[in-house]
């Protein structure tokens, strides 16, 4: 495995996991505020959901590229990709992957 290449993929994945996780967390809080508590929608609400729609595929690419470097199984790759759709889960998987990387 080319170390420099791997370092790039790893950094790309970590950035995307944190970005997608943070955006999804903020949007989930807003969703509860708007739909659950009946508060008015902030001006950026619709645009933020659309932006998340574009950020998630980038996270999927980052996960896929890392999976090819770490020889993950198909199932594991899909699960880590799906973690980007569950609030807080991308942070958890990012920590687990970090542990895996440090051990390898």
């Amino acid at each position, binding site marked *: 495995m080319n170390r420099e290449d791997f370092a790039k993929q790893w950094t790309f994945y970590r950035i995307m996991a944190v970005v997608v996780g943070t955006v999804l967390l903020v949007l989930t809080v807003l969703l509860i505020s708007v*739909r659950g508590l009946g508060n*008015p*929608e902030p001006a950026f609400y*619709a645009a933020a959901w*659309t932006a998340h*729609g*574009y950020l998630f*595929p980038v996270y*999927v*690419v980052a996960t*896929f590229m890392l999976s*090819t470097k770490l020889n993950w199984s198909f199932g594991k790759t899909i699960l880590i990709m799906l973690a980007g759709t569950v609030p807080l889960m991308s942070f958890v998987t990012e920590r687990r992957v970090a542990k895996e990387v440090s051990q390898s």
Partner: protein
Amino acid sequence: MSRYFSLRLLAIHALGAVSVLACLALGNWQWDRAHDYVSPETSMAKTFNELSPLRDYLPASSVGVATSVTGTWQPEERILMPERIIDGKSMINPNPETEVIAEWVGPVGYWVVDIMELEDESSLGIVRGFSETPDQIALATGLATVAGVMQPSEDLPGLKLVNKIEPLTTKLIVENSKTIAHDGYLVSTTKDESLTQVSPMFTEPVVTGLNWRNVAYTFNWIFFALIVAMMWVRVARDELEFAQIAQSNADLGHDNES
């Protein structure tokens, strides 16, 4: 040659093709939703279920369209919407960015919303009319046919009411319905002696051009389709390489044996 047709590779191609097609189909669906507008004349020719499909948003093209429904009133599920006037249009805040306090000349009272269970067992919120004393309005019971005009849920993006009026939302109707409810509500135009007929907020479709949110989602799905296609190519290529290496190793072993 057989390496091109291994079961694993065929499965990869099947999954890749299905995933790409699914993304493109979803993109196509969003593109259709972006072009939701059709003329009210076309919408009027539709059946109620085509006009207001269950388990989906009320299409923008159905807003303001006259229709009629037949069903059974659910008297115990009445919703009263306070601080309202007869003219729905006057309750719309023309500047949604700010809170507007409007001074009304006419009477202020309640919109009486009763739930009707339609023949397919779905529920529909129907604004029967306006009253200053809704307690005196008899509960609607039995089978009835009501003509009216379809309206969107009042938490529609971009729609804000004046005087901080509580919006009549699909969520509220769902909470007061025993069965699955349609999105939006119907403003009754059928004569009712005990109530004043309400003038609907929207008499024509709210979206008459492209819906840019759905356009963004369309490109979102195309973007996703491209990414899935890229992954498909990469996985198939890796699979072929592995098969090739395995074949070479097998050939080498065979040569050494002979």
